[in-house]
Protein backbone atom coordinates (compact mmCIF):
# COMPACT_ATOMS: atom_id res chain seq x y z
CA UNK A 1 0.00 0.00 0.00
CA UNK A 2 2.77 2.43 1.04
CA UNK A 3 4.68 1.48 -2.12
CA UNK A 4 1.67 2.40 -4.22
CA UNK A 5 1.34 5.77 -2.50
CA UNK A 6 5.06 6.47 -3.06
CA UNK A 7 4.76 5.44 -6.71
CA UNK A 8 1.71 7.68 -7.20
CA UNK A 9 3.55 10.62 -5.62
CA UNK A 10 6.63 9.95 -7.77
CA UNK A 11 4.39 9.95 -10.82
CA UNK A 12 2.84 13.26 -9.75
CA UNK A 13 6.32 14.75 -9.32
CA UNK A 14 7.43 13.45 -12.69
CA UNK A 15 4.50 14.95 -14.61
CA UNK A 16 4.81 18.28 -12.81
CA UNK A 17 7.93 19.64 -14.41
CA UNK A 18 7.48 22.96 -12.66
CA UNK A 19 9.10 25.06 -10.03
CA UNK A 20 8.16 23.71 -6.61
CA UNK A 21 7.73 25.77 -3.49
CA UNK A 22 8.42 24.85 0.09
CA UNK A 23 6.99 26.95 2.91
CA UNK A 24 7.27 26.61 6.67
CA UNK A 25 5.15 28.18 9.38
CA UNK A 26 5.72 27.64 13.06
CA UNK A 27 4.42 28.86 16.37
CA UNK A 28 6.27 28.15 19.61
CA UNK A 29 4.91 29.17 22.99
CA UNK A 30 6.75 28.74 26.28
CA UNK A 31 5.00 29.46 29.56
CA UNK A 32 6.51 29.66 33.03
CA UNK A 33 3.74 29.97 35.55
CA UNK A 34 0.34 28.53 36.25
CA UNK A 35 -3.36 29.24 36.33
CA UNK A 36 -3.84 31.35 39.49
CA UNK A 37 -6.44 29.02 41.01
CA UNK A 38 -4.15 25.98 40.68
CA UNK A 39 -1.75 26.14 43.62
CA UNK A 40 -0.46 22.57 43.20
CA UNK A 41 2.86 23.49 41.63
CA UNK A 42 4.77 25.68 39.22
CA UNK A 43 3.78 24.61 35.70
CA UNK A 44 6.22 25.32 32.86
CA UNK A 45 5.07 24.23 29.42
CA UNK A 46 6.27 24.29 25.83
CA UNK A 47 3.93 24.16 22.83
CA UNK A 48 4.95 24.04 19.17
CA UNK A 49 3.09 23.78 15.93
CA UNK A 50 4.90 23.45 12.62
CA UNK A 51 3.25 23.53 9.21
CA UNK A 52 5.11 22.39 6.10
CA UNK A 53 3.68 23.21 2.68
CA UNK A 54 5.02 21.80 -0.56
CA UNK A 55 3.45 23.07 -3.78
CA UNK A 56 4.00 22.20 -7.42
CA UNK A 57 1.78 24.16 -9.76
CA UNK A 58 -1.79 23.19 -8.84
CA UNK A 59 -0.92 20.48 -6.34
CA UNK A 60 -0.17 21.19 -2.72
CA UNK A 61 0.93 18.88 0.07
CA UNK A 62 0.62 20.03 3.67
CA UNK A 63 1.77 18.40 6.88
CA UNK A 64 1.28 19.87 10.36
CA UNK A 65 2.98 18.67 13.51
CA UNK A 66 1.92 19.63 17.01
CA UNK A 67 3.64 18.98 20.33
CA UNK A 68 3.18 19.92 23.98
CA UNK A 69 5.60 19.27 26.84
CA UNK A 70 5.15 19.76 30.59
CA UNK A 71 6.56 18.05 33.70
CA UNK A 72 3.43 15.81 33.62
CA UNK A 73 3.75 13.03 31.05
CA UNK A 74 -0.02 12.40 30.86
CA UNK A 75 -0.49 15.85 29.34
CA UNK A 76 2.34 15.61 26.82
CA UNK A 77 2.13 14.59 23.19
CA UNK A 78 3.82 14.81 19.81
CA UNK A 79 1.52 14.20 16.89
CA UNK A 80 1.24 14.46 13.15
CA UNK A 81 -1.79 16.72 13.45
CA UNK A 82 -2.86 17.20 9.85
CA UNK A 83 -1.93 15.95 6.39
CA UNK A 84 -3.53 17.24 3.22
CA UNK A 85 -3.20 16.67 -0.50
CA UNK A 86 -4.91 19.44 -2.42
CA UNK A 87 -5.51 20.00 -6.13
CA UNK A 88 -7.04 23.23 -7.41
CA UNK A 89 -8.22 24.40 -10.80
CA UNK A 90 -11.04 26.82 -11.53
CA UNK A 91 -13.29 23.98 -12.82
CA UNK A 92 -12.35 21.14 -10.52
CA UNK A 93 -10.69 20.75 -7.16
CA UNK A 94 -10.24 18.07 -4.54
CA UNK A 95 -8.75 17.73 -1.10
CA UNK A 96 -7.77 14.58 0.74
CA UNK A 97 -6.81 14.35 4.39
CA UNK A 98 -7.73 16.95 6.99
CA UNK A 99 -10.22 19.35 5.46
CA UNK A 100 -12.43 22.34 6.31
CA UNK A 101 -15.95 23.05 5.08
CA UNK A 102 -18.92 25.21 6.08
CA UNK A 103 -22.41 24.26 4.87
CA UNK A 104 -25.51 26.50 4.96
CA UNK A 105 -23.74 29.24 6.94
CA UNK A 106 -22.79 26.72 9.62
CA UNK A 107 -26.35 25.50 10.23
CA UNK A 108 -25.51 22.01 8.90
CA UNK A 109 -21.73 21.97 9.30
CA UNK A 110 -19.08 24.36 10.58
CA UNK A 111 -15.39 23.55 10.72
CA UNK A 112 -12.83 26.21 11.56
CA UNK A 113 -9.28 27.04 12.50
CA UNK A 114 -8.69 30.16 14.57
CA UNK A 115 -5.30 31.56 13.60
CA UNK A 116 -2.93 31.78 16.54
CA UNK A 117 -5.51 30.63 19.12
CA UNK A 118 -4.42 27.95 21.58
CA UNK A 119 -6.95 26.05 23.64
CA UNK A 120 -6.44 24.46 27.06
CA UNK A 121 -9.29 22.68 28.80
CA UNK A 122 -9.32 22.96 32.60
CA UNK A 123 -9.88 19.25 33.25
CA UNK A 124 -7.15 17.98 30.85
CA UNK A 125 -4.63 20.88 31.01
CA UNK A 126 -3.20 19.78 27.67
CA UNK A 127 -2.78 22.65 25.22
CA UNK A 128 -3.68 22.37 21.55
CA UNK A 129 -4.47 24.56 18.59
CA UNK A 130 -8.12 25.61 18.59
CA UNK A 131 -9.67 24.10 15.49
CA UNK A 132 -12.25 21.62 14.24
CA UNK A 133 -11.61 19.78 10.98
CA UNK A 134 -12.81 16.68 9.14
CA UNK A 135 -10.66 13.70 8.25
CA UNK A 136 -11.70 12.55 4.80
CA UNK A 137 -11.99 14.06 1.37
CA UNK A 138 -13.98 16.55 -0.66
CA UNK A 139 -14.43 17.44 -4.32
CA UNK A 140 -15.84 20.48 -6.12
CA UNK A 141 -16.87 20.49 -9.74
CA UNK A 142 -17.89 23.75 -11.37
CA UNK A 143 -19.82 24.18 -14.58
CA UNK A 144 -21.07 27.51 -15.91
CA UNK A 145 -23.88 28.17 -13.45
CA UNK A 146 -23.72 24.97 -11.47
CA UNK A 147 -21.38 23.96 -8.66
CA UNK A 148 -21.48 20.47 -7.18
CA UNK A 149 -19.71 19.68 -3.92
CA UNK A 150 -19.30 16.32 -2.23
CA UNK A 151 -17.64 15.42 1.03
CA UNK A 152 -17.00 12.46 3.31
CA UNK A 153 -15.27 12.93 6.62
CA UNK A 154 -15.00 12.34 10.34
CA UNK A 155 -15.43 15.54 12.40
CA UNK A 156 -13.05 16.25 15.27
CA UNK A 157 -14.38 16.59 18.83
CA UNK A 158 -12.01 19.41 19.71
CA UNK A 159 -12.69 19.51 23.45
CA UNK A 160 -10.72 16.27 23.78
CA UNK A 161 -6.96 16.93 23.65
CA UNK A 162 -4.53 15.11 21.32
CA UNK A 163 -3.57 12.82 24.21
CA UNK A 164 -6.76 10.93 23.30
CA UNK A 165 -6.68 8.42 20.46
CA UNK A 166 -8.11 9.65 17.15
CA UNK A 167 -10.87 7.01 17.25
CA UNK A 168 -12.21 8.63 20.44
CA UNK A 169 -11.96 12.15 18.98
CA UNK A 170 -13.66 11.22 15.70
CA UNK A 171 -16.73 9.07 16.40
CA UNK A 172 -19.08 10.19 13.60
CA UNK A 173 -19.04 9.85 9.83
CA UNK A 174 -20.46 12.66 7.70
CA UNK A 175 -21.41 12.39 4.04
CA UNK A 176 -22.49 15.54 2.22
CA UNK A 177 -23.69 16.53 -1.22
CA UNK A 178 -24.44 20.14 -2.20
CA UNK A 179 -25.66 21.63 -5.45
CA UNK A 180 -25.52 25.36 -6.06
CA UNK A 181 -27.19 26.96 -9.08
CA UNK A 182 -26.61 30.59 -9.98
CA UNK A 183 -28.71 32.63 -12.36
CA UNK A 184 -27.95 36.32 -12.78
CA UNK A 185 -27.21 37.48 -9.26
CA UNK A 186 -29.46 34.92 -7.54
CA UNK A 187 -28.29 31.61 -6.11
CA UNK A 188 -30.22 28.56 -4.94
CA UNK A 189 -28.51 25.78 -3.02
CA UNK A 190 -29.68 22.33 -1.95
CA UNK A 191 -27.65 20.45 0.67
CA UNK A 192 -28.01 16.92 2.00
CA UNK A 193 -25.97 15.60 4.91
CA UNK A 194 -25.97 12.26 6.67
CA UNK A 195 -24.44 11.70 10.09
CA UNK A 196 -23.67 8.12 11.08
CA UNK A 197 -22.58 7.07 14.53
CA UNK A 198 -22.61 3.70 16.31
CA UNK A 199 -26.14 4.40 17.50
CA UNK A 200 -27.89 5.59 14.33
CA UNK A 201 -27.79 7.42 11.01
CA UNK A 202 -29.52 10.75 10.65
CA UNK A 203 -30.34 12.60 7.43
CA UNK A 204 -30.56 16.36 7.30
CA UNK A 205 -31.34 18.75 4.48
CA UNK A 206 -30.97 22.47 3.87
CA UNK A 207 -32.26 24.74 1.15
CA UNK A 208 -31.12 28.31 0.68
CA UNK A 209 -31.74 31.18 -1.69
CA UNK A 210 -29.99 34.52 -1.92
CA UNK A 211 -29.71 37.48 -4.22
CA UNK A 212 -30.74 41.08 -4.74
CA UNK A 213 -34.33 42.31 -4.40
CA UNK A 214 -33.39 45.81 -5.55
CA UNK A 215 -29.93 47.21 -6.33
CA UNK A 216 -29.60 48.30 -2.71
CA UNK A 217 -31.42 45.40 -1.02
CA UNK A 218 -30.07 41.84 -0.74
CA UNK A 219 -31.66 38.84 0.92
CA UNK A 220 -30.73 35.36 2.13
CA UNK A 221 -33.04 32.62 3.40
CA UNK A 222 -32.00 29.19 4.74
CA UNK A 223 -34.33 26.39 5.84
CA UNK A 224 -32.89 23.25 7.39
CA UNK A 225 -34.52 20.18 8.94
CA UNK A 226 -34.23 16.45 9.58
CA UNK A 227 -37.91 16.11 8.56
CA UNK A 228 -39.23 15.80 12.12
CA UNK A 229 -38.10 17.35 15.40
CA UNK A 230 -35.06 19.35 14.28
CA UNK A 231 -35.67 22.61 12.43
CA UNK A 232 -33.68 25.74 11.73
CA UNK A 233 -34.53 28.91 9.86
CA UNK A 234 -32.25 31.86 9.15
CA UNK A 235 -32.91 34.96 7.05
CA UNK A 236 -31.18 38.23 6.50
CA UNK A 237 -31.76 41.39 4.54
CA UNK A 238 -29.06 43.92 3.73
CA UNK A 239 -29.87 47.50 2.81
CA UNK A 240 -26.96 49.60 1.64
CA UNK A 241 -26.45 53.04 0.26
CA UNK A 242 -23.22 54.99 -0.03
CA UNK A 243 -22.25 55.81 3.56
CA UNK A 244 -25.09 53.78 5.12
CA UNK A 245 -25.23 50.02 5.60
CA UNK A 246 -27.99 48.15 7.44
CA UNK A 247 -28.11 44.42 8.22
CA UNK A 248 -31.26 42.75 9.54
CA UNK A 249 -31.06 39.06 10.55
CA UNK A 250 -33.62 36.64 11.96
CA UNK A 251 -33.11 33.15 13.48
CA UNK A 252 -35.31 30.35 14.76
CA UNK A 253 -33.43 27.22 15.89
CA UNK A 254 -35.28 24.27 17.41
CA UNK A 255 -33.39 21.25 18.71
CA UNK A 256 -30.55 22.03 16.30
CA UNK A 257 -27.45 20.70 18.01
CA UNK A 258 -26.21 18.11 15.51
CA UNK A 259 -24.22 15.05 16.59
CA UNK A 260 -21.15 15.97 18.60
CA UNK A 261 -21.98 19.64 17.89
CA UNK A 262 -20.25 19.82 14.50
CA UNK A 263 -22.58 22.59 13.39
CA UNK A 264 -22.77 26.20 14.57
CA UNK A 265 -25.75 28.26 13.37
CA UNK A 266 -25.15 32.02 13.05
CA UNK A 267 -25.28 33.64 16.50
CA UNK A 268 -26.94 36.95 15.57
CA UNK A 269 -25.35 38.66 18.52
CA UNK A 270 -22.54 41.13 17.97
CA UNK A 271 -19.03 39.83 18.50
CA UNK A 272 -17.40 42.66 20.45
CA UNK A 273 -13.69 43.36 20.57
CA UNK A 274 -13.89 45.27 23.83
CA UNK A 275 -12.79 43.15 26.78
CA UNK A 276 -15.71 43.72 29.13
CA UNK A 277 -18.20 43.05 26.32
CA UNK A 278 -16.39 40.17 24.60
CA UNK A 279 -16.34 38.24 27.87
CA UNK A 280 -20.13 38.61 28.21
CA UNK A 281 -21.03 37.63 24.62
CA UNK A 282 -24.33 35.74 24.48
CA UNK A 283 -23.66 32.17 23.32
CA UNK A 284 -26.58 30.84 21.26
CA UNK A 285 -28.38 27.76 22.54
CA UNK A 286 -29.56 26.04 19.33
CA UNK A 287 -31.80 23.61 21.31
CA UNK A 288 -34.23 26.51 21.52
CA UNK A 289 -33.33 29.96 20.33
CA UNK A 290 -35.04 32.55 18.23
CA UNK A 291 -34.50 36.25 17.79
CA UNK A 292 -33.04 38.92 15.59
CA UNK A 293 -30.16 41.34 15.16
CA UNK A 294 -30.13 44.75 13.49
CA UNK A 295 -26.90 46.59 12.78
CA UNK A 296 -26.44 49.94 11.07
CA UNK A 297 -23.17 51.61 10.04
CA UNK A 298 -22.98 55.29 9.06
CA UNK A 299 -19.95 56.96 7.48
CA UNK A 300 -19.90 60.75 7.85
CA UNK A 301 -18.21 63.33 5.62
CA UNK A 302 -15.39 63.79 8.14
CA UNK A 303 -14.77 59.97 7.85
CA UNK A 304 -16.07 59.34 11.37
CA UNK A 305 -18.06 56.10 11.72
CA UNK A 306 -21.15 55.42 13.83
CA UNK A 307 -22.21 51.80 14.51
CA UNK A 308 -25.56 50.92 16.11
CA UNK A 309 -26.54 47.38 17.03
CA UNK A 310 -29.55 45.78 18.66
CA UNK A 311 -29.91 42.04 19.31
CA UNK A 312 -32.66 40.02 20.94
CA UNK A 313 -32.58 36.28 21.70
CA UNK A 314 -35.34 34.19 23.27
CA UNK A 315 -34.44 30.87 24.90
CA UNK A 316 -36.74 28.33 26.51
CA UNK A 317 -34.70 27.16 29.51
CA UNK A 318 -36.91 26.58 32.54
CA UNK A 319 -39.24 29.19 31.10
CA UNK A 320 -38.83 32.01 28.65
CA UNK A 321 -35.48 33.84 28.90
CA UNK A 322 -35.10 37.03 26.89
CA UNK A 323 -31.64 38.44 26.17
CA UNK A 324 -31.54 42.06 24.95
CA UNK A 325 -28.64 44.22 23.92
CA UNK A 326 -28.28 47.80 22.59
CA UNK A 327 -24.88 49.03 21.43
CA UNK A 328 -23.45 52.28 20.08
CA UNK A 329 -19.91 52.95 18.89
CA UNK A 330 -18.51 56.14 17.42
CA UNK A 331 -15.00 56.59 16.06
CA UNK A 332 -13.50 59.83 14.87
CA UNK A 333 -10.17 61.47 14.17
CA UNK A 334 -10.48 64.38 16.62
CA UNK A 335 -7.50 66.15 15.15
CA UNK A 336 -4.53 65.13 13.03
CA UNK A 337 -2.75 62.37 14.94
CA UNK A 338 -5.52 61.71 17.49
CA UNK A 339 -8.00 58.89 16.84
CA UNK A 340 -10.77 58.30 19.36
CA UNK A 341 -13.41 55.66 19.76
CA UNK A 342 -16.22 55.51 22.33
CA UNK A 343 -18.81 52.83 23.00
CA UNK A 344 -21.81 52.32 25.25
CA UNK A 345 -23.78 49.12 25.74
CA UNK A 346 -26.97 48.23 27.60
CA UNK A 347 -27.93 44.58 28.07
CA UNK A 348 -30.36 42.36 30.00
CA UNK A 349 -28.91 38.85 30.27
CA UNK A 350 -31.00 36.34 32.26
CA UNK A 351 -28.72 33.40 31.36
CA UNK A 352 -25.83 35.15 33.15
CA UNK A 353 -28.34 36.06 35.90
CA UNK A 354 -27.89 39.77 35.15
CA UNK A 355 -31.02 41.91 35.26
CA UNK A 356 -29.05 44.93 34.04
CA UNK A 357 -25.62 45.41 32.47
CA UNK A 358 -24.25 48.80 31.48
CA UNK A 359 -20.87 49.15 29.78
CA UNK A 360 -18.87 51.97 28.25
CA UNK A 361 -15.37 52.84 27.24
CA UNK A 362 -13.02 55.10 25.35
CA UNK A 363 -10.01 54.23 23.17
CA UNK A 364 -7.48 56.86 22.06
CA UNK A 365 -4.54 56.53 19.69
CA UNK A 366 -2.06 59.41 19.66
CA UNK A 367 0.47 59.49 16.84
CA UNK A 368 3.87 60.74 18.03
CA UNK A 369 6.82 61.99 16.05
CA UNK A 370 8.86 59.48 14.07
CA UNK A 371 5.97 57.08 13.46
CA UNK A 372 5.54 56.09 17.11
CA UNK A 373 2.08 55.96 18.68
CA UNK A 374 0.55 55.83 22.13
CA UNK A 375 -2.71 54.14 23.11
CA UNK A 376 -4.83 55.00 26.14
CA UNK A 377 -7.83 52.77 26.72
CA UNK A 378 -10.46 52.47 29.42
CA UNK A 379 -13.57 50.29 29.80
CA UNK A 380 -16.10 50.08 32.62
CA UNK A 381 -18.99 47.70 33.19
CA UNK A 382 -21.62 47.67 35.90
CA UNK A 383 -24.02 44.77 36.39
CA UNK A 384 -26.90 43.83 38.70
CA UNK A 385 -27.59 40.23 39.64
CA UNK A 386 -29.27 38.45 42.58
CA UNK A 387 -26.04 38.60 44.61
CA UNK A 388 -24.73 42.11 44.12
CA UNK A 389 -24.27 45.23 42.02
CA UNK A 390 -20.83 44.52 40.64
CA UNK A 391 -18.31 45.95 38.22
CA UNK A 392 -15.57 45.02 35.77
CA UNK A 393 -12.97 47.52 34.71
CA UNK A 394 -10.06 47.64 32.27
CA UNK A 395 -7.22 50.14 31.80
CA UNK A 396 -4.81 49.77 28.91
CA UNK A 397 -1.68 51.65 27.96
CA UNK A 398 0.15 50.85 24.73
CA UNK A 399 3.22 52.16 22.93
CA UNK A 400 4.30 51.34 19.38
CA UNK A 401 7.57 52.35 17.86
CA UNK A 402 6.77 52.02 14.18
CA UNK A 403 6.09 48.51 12.96
CA UNK A 404 9.08 46.93 14.70
CA UNK A 405 8.17 47.08 18.35
CA UNK A 406 5.03 47.52 20.42
CA UNK A 407 4.35 47.14 24.12
CA UNK A 408 1.36 47.30 26.44
CA UNK A 409 0.36 47.40 30.09
CA UNK A 410 -3.10 46.25 31.14
CA UNK A 411 -4.93 46.40 34.44
CA UNK A 412 -8.25 44.67 34.99
CA UNK A 413 -10.37 44.82 38.11
CA UNK A 414 -13.56 43.08 39.24
CA UNK A 415 -15.67 42.42 42.31
CA UNK A 416 -17.87 39.78 40.63
CA UNK A 417 -18.66 37.43 43.53
CA UNK A 418 -19.76 34.65 41.18
CA UNK A 419 -16.20 34.49 39.79
CA UNK A 420 -13.81 35.47 42.56
CA UNK A 421 -13.58 34.45 46.23
CA UNK A 422 -12.34 37.79 47.56
CA UNK A 423 -13.98 41.21 47.76
CA UNK A 424 -11.92 42.68 44.95
CA UNK A 425 -9.36 41.38 42.45
CA UNK A 426 -6.78 42.99 40.17
CA UNK A 427 -5.11 41.43 37.13
CA UNK A 428 -1.96 43.34 36.16
CA UNK A 429 0.11 42.34 33.16
CA UNK A 430 2.26 43.72 30.41
CA UNK A 431 4.11 42.61 27.35
CA UNK A 432 5.22 43.43 23.87
CA UNK A 433 5.82 42.35 20.33
CA UNK A 434 9.13 42.57 18.54
CA UNK A 435 9.26 42.03 14.81
CA UNK A 436 12.72 40.56 14.30
CA UNK A 437 12.38 40.47 10.51
CA UNK A 438 9.60 40.14 7.96
CA UNK A 439 9.63 36.37 8.70
CA UNK A 440 9.96 36.26 12.48
CA UNK A 441 8.26 37.92 15.41
CA UNK A 442 8.52 37.49 19.18
CA UNK A 443 5.72 38.34 21.61
CA UNK A 444 5.94 38.17 25.37
CA UNK A 445 3.73 38.62 28.41
CA UNK A 446 4.49 38.90 32.11
CA UNK A 447 2.06 39.21 34.99
CA UNK A 448 -1.48 38.02 35.47
CA UNK A 449 -4.01 37.63 32.66
CA UNK A 450 -7.74 37.33 33.19
CA UNK A 451 -9.39 34.37 31.48
CA UNK A 452 -13.03 33.52 30.95
CA UNK A 453 -15.22 33.23 27.89
CA UNK A 454 -13.65 34.70 24.75
CA UNK A 455 -14.95 35.05 21.21
CA UNK A 456 -12.54 35.24 18.28
CA UNK A 457 -13.31 35.00 14.57
CA UNK A 458 -16.93 34.16 15.33
CA UNK A 459 -16.11 31.22 17.62
CA UNK A 460 -16.47 31.37 21.40
CA UNK A 461 -14.44 29.29 23.82
CA UNK A 462 -13.09 29.43 27.35
CA UNK A 463 -9.64 30.83 28.15
CA UNK A 464 -7.91 29.97 31.43
CA UNK A 465 -6.44 32.63 33.72
CA UNK A 466 -2.65 32.76 33.65
CA UNK A 467 0.00 34.08 36.01
CA UNK A 468 3.66 34.04 35.08
CA UNK A 469 5.81 34.68 32.03
CA UNK A 470 4.98 33.70 28.46
CA UNK A 471 6.95 34.04 25.25
CA UNK A 472 5.82 33.26 21.68
CA UNK A 473 7.87 32.93 18.53
CA UNK A 474 6.08 33.08 15.17
CA UNK A 475 7.77 32.33 11.85
CA UNK A 476 6.72 32.18 8.21
CA UNK A 477 9.54 31.12 5.90
Amino acid at each position, binding site marked *: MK*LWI*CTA*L*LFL*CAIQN*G*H*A*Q*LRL*QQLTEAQFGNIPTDTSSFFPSLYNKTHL*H*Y*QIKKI*KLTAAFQQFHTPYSSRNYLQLQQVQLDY*YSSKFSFQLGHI*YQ*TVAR*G*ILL*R*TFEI*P*GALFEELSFRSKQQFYRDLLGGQIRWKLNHLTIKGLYGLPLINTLPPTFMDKKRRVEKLAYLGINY*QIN*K*HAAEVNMLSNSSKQNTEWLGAFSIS*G*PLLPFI*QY*TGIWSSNGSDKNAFYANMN*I*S*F*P*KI*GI*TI*EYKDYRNYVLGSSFN*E*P*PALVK*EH*NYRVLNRMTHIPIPQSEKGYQI*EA*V*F*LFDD*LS*ILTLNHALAINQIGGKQIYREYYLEYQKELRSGLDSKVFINYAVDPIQLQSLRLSGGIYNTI*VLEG*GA*SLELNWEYQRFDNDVQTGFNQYYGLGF*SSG*NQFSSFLSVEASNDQLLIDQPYKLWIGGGGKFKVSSNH*SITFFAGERRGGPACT*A*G*ICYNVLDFKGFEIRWNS*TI
Partner: protein
Amino acid sequence: MARYCVLLVFLLLSNVGFNQTLRGFTLPNINNININFNDIKGKKLTVVDFWATWCKPCMKAIPKLSHLSSKYRSKGVQFIGINGDGPRNMAKVGPLTRALQIDYLVLLDPDLTIFQDLNVSTFPTLLILNENNEIIWRHEGFLEGDERLIEEAILNNLQ
Protein backbone atom coordinates in the same frame (compact mmCIF):
# COMPACT_ATOMS: atom_id res chain seq x y z
CA MET B 1 10.66 0.81 0.02
CA ALA B 2 13.45 2.87 1.63
CA ARG B 3 14.97 3.53 -1.80
CA TYR B 4 11.59 4.78 -3.03
CA CYS B 5 11.30 7.16 -0.10
CA VAL B 6 14.81 8.57 -0.60
CA LEU B 7 14.10 9.04 -4.30
CA LEU B 8 10.77 10.69 -3.51
CA VAL B 9 12.32 13.16 -1.04
CA PHE B 10 15.13 13.93 -3.49
CA LEU B 11 12.66 14.53 -6.31
CA LEU B 12 10.40 16.68 -4.16
CA LEU B 13 13.27 18.88 -3.00
CA SER B 14 15.24 18.97 -6.25
CA ASN B 15 13.36 21.88 -7.77
CA VAL B 16 12.33 23.82 -4.69
CA GLY B 17 12.08 27.60 -4.64
CA PHE B 18 10.99 29.86 -1.81
CA ASN B 19 8.94 32.52 -3.61
CA GLN B 20 5.35 31.49 -3.07
CA THR B 21 2.97 31.57 -6.03
CA LEU B 22 -0.79 31.94 -5.89
CA ARG B 23 -2.50 28.99 -7.64
CA GLY B 24 -5.48 31.17 -8.56
CA PHE B 25 -8.97 31.06 -7.05
CA THR B 26 -12.63 31.74 -7.65
CA LEU B 27 -14.58 33.42 -4.85
CA PRO B 28 -17.96 35.19 -4.67
CA ASN B 29 -18.10 38.96 -4.31
CA ILE B 30 -20.58 40.75 -2.06
CA ASN B 31 -23.18 40.64 -4.88
CA ASN B 32 -23.04 36.84 -5.02
CA ILE B 33 -21.12 36.73 -8.33
CA ASN B 34 -18.19 34.32 -8.64
CA ILE B 35 -14.98 36.12 -9.57
CA ASN B 36 -11.83 34.48 -10.91
CA PHE B 37 -8.55 35.97 -9.69
CA ASN B 38 -6.99 35.94 -13.17
CA ASP B 39 -9.81 38.18 -14.45
CA ILE B 40 -9.22 40.89 -11.87
CA LYS B 41 -5.52 40.86 -11.07
CA GLY B 42 -3.41 43.95 -11.71
CA LYS B 43 -1.36 44.37 -14.88
CA LYS B 44 1.79 44.97 -12.85
CA LEU B 45 1.00 44.35 -9.19
CA THR B 46 -1.90 42.96 -7.19
CA VAL B 47 -2.32 43.98 -3.56
CA VAL B 48 -4.37 41.46 -1.56
CA ASP B 49 -5.71 42.53 1.84
CA PHE B 50 -7.07 39.82 4.17
CA TRP B 51 -9.55 41.41 6.58
CA ALA B 52 -12.54 40.70 8.81
CA THR B 53 -15.31 42.90 10.24
CA TRP B 54 -14.39 42.04 13.85
CA CYS B 55 -10.71 43.00 13.35
CA LYS B 56 -9.96 46.50 14.68
CA PRO B 57 -6.65 47.10 12.82
CA CYS B 58 -8.37 45.94 9.59
CA MET B 59 -10.99 48.68 9.96
CA LYS B 60 -8.20 51.20 10.58
CA ALA B 61 -6.35 50.08 7.43
CA ILE B 62 -9.27 50.07 4.97
CA PRO B 63 -9.63 53.87 4.38
CA LYS B 64 -5.85 54.12 3.83
CA LEU B 65 -5.89 51.20 1.38
CA SER B 66 -8.84 52.74 -0.48
CA HIS B 67 -6.79 55.89 -0.89
CA LEU B 68 -3.76 53.95 -2.20
CA SER B 69 -6.00 51.93 -4.51
CA SER B 70 -7.39 55.01 -6.23
CA LYS B 71 -3.89 56.53 -6.41
CA TYR B 72 -2.18 53.55 -8.08
CA ARG B 73 -4.96 51.89 -10.12
CA SER B 74 -4.00 53.75 -13.30
CA LYS B 75 -0.39 52.57 -12.85
CA GLY B 76 -1.35 48.88 -13.13
CA VAL B 77 -1.85 48.16 -9.43
CA GLN B 78 -5.08 46.37 -8.48
CA PHE B 79 -6.22 46.07 -4.86
CA ILE B 80 -8.40 43.12 -3.77
CA GLY B 81 -9.92 42.66 -0.32
CA ILE B 82 -10.51 39.08 0.83
CA ASN B 83 -12.91 38.99 3.74
CA GLY B 84 -12.55 36.07 6.13
CA ASP B 85 -15.69 36.51 8.23
CA GLY B 86 -17.41 33.26 9.11
CA PRO B 87 -21.17 32.67 9.26
CA ARG B 88 -21.52 34.80 12.40
CA ASN B 89 -20.57 38.07 10.72
CA MET B 90 -20.68 37.49 6.96
CA ALA B 91 -24.10 39.14 6.52
CA LYS B 92 -22.51 42.42 7.63
CA VAL B 93 -19.72 42.43 5.03
CA GLY B 94 -21.79 43.81 2.11
CA PRO B 95 -23.38 46.73 3.97
CA LEU B 96 -20.07 47.59 5.66
CA THR B 97 -18.19 47.50 2.34
CA ARG B 98 -20.68 49.87 0.73
CA ALA B 99 -21.00 52.14 3.76
CA LEU B 100 -17.21 52.52 4.03
CA GLN B 101 -17.08 53.11 0.26
CA ILE B 102 -14.27 50.59 -0.17
CA ASP B 103 -12.72 51.54 -3.47
CA TYR B 104 -11.67 48.02 -4.55
CA LEU B 105 -13.28 44.62 -5.06
CA VAL B 106 -14.15 42.64 -1.91
CA LEU B 107 -14.41 38.84 -2.15
CA LEU B 108 -15.79 36.46 0.49
CA ASP B 109 -13.79 33.50 1.83
CA PRO B 110 -15.71 32.21 4.88
CA ASP B 111 -13.81 28.88 4.98
CA LEU B 112 -10.45 30.74 4.85
CA THR B 113 -9.43 28.61 1.86
CA ILE B 114 -7.21 31.25 0.27
CA PHE B 115 -6.04 32.40 3.70
CA GLN B 116 -4.67 28.89 4.33
CA ASP B 117 -3.48 28.40 0.77
CA LEU B 118 -1.22 31.45 1.09
CA ASN B 119 -0.07 30.53 4.62
CA VAL B 120 -1.61 33.64 6.13
CA SER B 121 -1.77 33.45 9.91
CA THR B 122 -3.30 36.71 11.10
CA PHE B 123 -5.74 39.52 10.27
CA PRO B 124 -4.93 41.88 8.68
CA THR B 125 -2.30 40.53 6.32
CA LEU B 126 -1.40 42.35 3.15
CA LEU B 127 0.36 40.66 0.23
CA ILE B 128 1.80 42.18 -2.92
CA LEU B 129 1.91 39.86 -5.94
CA ASN B 130 3.74 40.45 -9.20
CA GLU B 131 2.35 39.75 -12.68
CA ASN B 132 3.42 36.07 -12.33
CA ASN B 133 1.28 35.74 -9.16
CA GLU B 134 4.41 35.45 -7.00
CA ILE B 135 4.20 36.92 -3.50
CA ILE B 136 6.91 39.56 -3.37
CA TRP B 137 5.96 41.40 -0.18
CA ARG B 138 4.09 40.45 2.98
CA HIS B 139 2.94 42.68 5.84
CA GLU B 140 1.09 41.61 8.99
CA GLY B 141 -0.95 43.87 11.27
CA PHE B 142 -1.66 47.56 10.82
CA LEU B 143 -0.42 50.46 12.91
CA GLU B 144 -0.67 54.19 12.26
CA GLY B 145 1.84 55.06 9.56
CA ASP B 146 1.97 51.58 8.00
CA GLU B 147 0.32 53.01 4.89
CA ARG B 148 3.66 54.69 4.14
CA LEU B 149 5.45 51.30 4.28
CA ILE B 150 2.83 49.81 1.93
CA GLU B 151 3.16 52.69 -0.52
CA GLU B 152 6.95 52.38 -0.41
CA ALA B 153 6.68 48.65 -1.19
CA ILE B 154 4.36 49.36 -4.13
CA LEU B 155 6.71 51.99 -5.52
CA ASN B 156 9.79 49.77 -5.08
CA ASN B 157 8.13 46.88 -6.90
CA LEU B 158 6.65 49.04 -9.65
CA GLN B 159 10.13 50.09 -10.77
